[in-house]
């Protein structure tokens, strides 16, 4: 993380922390939904941007997490924030299980398979699989989250919960980017053959990236369930996967600040275009085309990590 980026993050954090003083409840709610999409976009970025796996069924993992949290909460009475790790785990296990046989498929084949997985999960939820998901009506009566004995229910309070989770995620993902794992993924995406030749177990790393991204989407799902207190299959449609996919590519695939900007733009654009009334989605589509034609690499494209001499451990720096 460069110093300038840290500075920008701090400014944004201060701005968000002060937001409840200046904005009304509706606007805060929009910001909360930006936060949830930022989390989803960051988690998909791990799969699509870092590992280069075309995944257009991310809503499946989001749904897995949301439903896990909702079922644990409504059936077993587990507090929703306690269900967070379970949601991540279930989504990751599911992702690893279904991705194992298909992860070697060529780009576009994988894209269609993941679209298919997303649809299968959604249809399974509609059909009330195992009698747990509540069919097309979904699950309602999910308890509000309780943090340190305080019940979170107002949009302002959710702002801190959601964006707090975003802050933790951004920190962890930046660390991950610079770790051995992150560098292996970058290598893998840029040149899979050379990466394999250098002894990187490509299948394993791809699978790990897939599972980790899914885990984060699952936890985001749990947060979503706690915010809405009601979830239904239509919240996890194909459109949802497409939107998150757009955020990653529009913002700059592989770049953490990029996909965050992408998420903010995609959520806020229809709000800004409210003046166009029914034509706002038309304008949205048009703007997307124009943005891609003008900046095909995304708004804030990924840049290779650079290391200064002082970053290197002393032993290696010595001649």
């Amino acid at each position: 993380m460069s110093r300038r980026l840290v500075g920008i993050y701090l400014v944004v954090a201060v701005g968000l922390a002060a937001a409840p003083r200046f904005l009304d409840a509706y606007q805060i709610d929009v910001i909360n939904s930006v936060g949830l999409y930022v989390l989803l976009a960051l988690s998909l970025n791990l799969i699509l941007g870092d590992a280069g796996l075309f995944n257009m069924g991310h809503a499946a993992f989001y749904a897995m997490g949301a439903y896990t949290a909702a079922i644990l909460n409504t059936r077993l009475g587990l507090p929703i924030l306690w269900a967070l790790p379970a949601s991540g785990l279930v989504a990751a296990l599911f992702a690893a299980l279904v991705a194992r046989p298909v992860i070697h498929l060529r780009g576009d084949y994988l894209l269609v398979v993941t679209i298919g997985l997303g649809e299968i999960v959604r249809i399974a939820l509609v059909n009330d699989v195992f009698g747990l998901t509540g069919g097309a009506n979904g699950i309602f009566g999910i308890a509000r989250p309780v943090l340190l004995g305080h019940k979170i229910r107002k949009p302002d309070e959710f702002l801190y919960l959601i964006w707090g989770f975003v802050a933790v995620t951004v920190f962890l993902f930046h660390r991950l980017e610079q770790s051995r794992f992150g560098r292996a993924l970058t290598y893998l995406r840029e040149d899979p053959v050379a990466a394999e030749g250098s002894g990187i177990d490509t299948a394993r790393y791809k699978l790990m990236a897939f599972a980790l991204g899914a885990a984060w989407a699952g936890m985001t799902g749990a947060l979503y369930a706690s915010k809405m207190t009601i979830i239904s299959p239509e919240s996890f449609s194909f459109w949802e996967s497409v939107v998150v996919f757009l955020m990653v590519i529009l913002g700059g695939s592989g770049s953490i600040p990029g996909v965050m900007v992408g998420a903010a733009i995609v959520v806020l654009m229809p709000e800004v275009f409210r003046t166009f009334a029914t034509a706002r989605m038309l304008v949205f589509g048009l703007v997307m085309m124009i943005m891609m034609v003008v900046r095909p690499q995304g708004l804030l494209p990924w840049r290779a990590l650079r290391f200064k001499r002082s970053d290197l451990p002393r032993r290696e720096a010595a001649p």
Partner: protein
Amino acid sequence: MEQFLQQLINGLAVGSIYALIALGYTMVYGVLRLINFAHGDLFTYGAYLGMTLLTSLLLKDRLGLTLGLLVLAGMVMGLVAVVGVLLERAAYRPLLTAPRLSAVVSALGASIFLQNTLMLIYGARYQVYPDILPQTTVDLLGLPVPIMRIIVVMVSVVMMAVLFLFVQKTKVGTAIRAAAIDQGAARLMGIDVNRVIQLVFIIGPALGGAAGLLVGLYYGQISFTMGWTYGMKAFTAAILGGIGNIPGAMVGGLILGVVEALGAGYVSIAWKDAIAFVVLILILIVRPSGLLGERVAEKV
């Protein structure tokens, strides 16, 4: 047995519509390596244009049923092809050298745009096709089959046969195949690849538009979002057959339609839409590049 045959014929009718749409996906993919997500919406354009022309021009009263429908089909295919060419110019040509996923996002943007133009013009509600075809059934080996099903299958088969011969036997068709195999080499052989791309964006949308018209006539009800479902199914069919491969798209479409119809009839109607994808995943596990796709070595 009778139910089985009925489901089979129904599946063939739906499958041949999938196949017609899948051809557009597969031809564009073959030349550009691009998933044209807006193709499903060109199909919807076909359905809506067909409805508008049918009600406004009164072709049936002026030209009689058969000739009227032929003229209508020609007009719809021509108009949708124009939209296809414009789409290529606006959304894809500027991105020829860009990263591949940028073109995918541009395609998604185009899809949203096209869908919403229809929504703004016609409104968000279902539209109903005028009832012009006789509701008769034909006796097929002792089996009563609605005539529309037979028309759908026959029209699709004829169009696919014409396309197949065109691509295999003519000089222009050879150029399309050459550009699909290796664009650079095709260019060196004196093929104007940009014209090939344009041609592909005429043929694909024309077939998609025809499929839209057929769906309108067959089901009698259309909506502005139907391009997503049909497009997704057709694209699945193209992948199933091996994307970039023209016979593969036809085979894939027919298989998908039949499996779906039989699955809905014998397994469960609620899982109908999932069956197609389960079949796709199972086939791709066994044959990673589709049924007729060439094997591209990519070891992981």
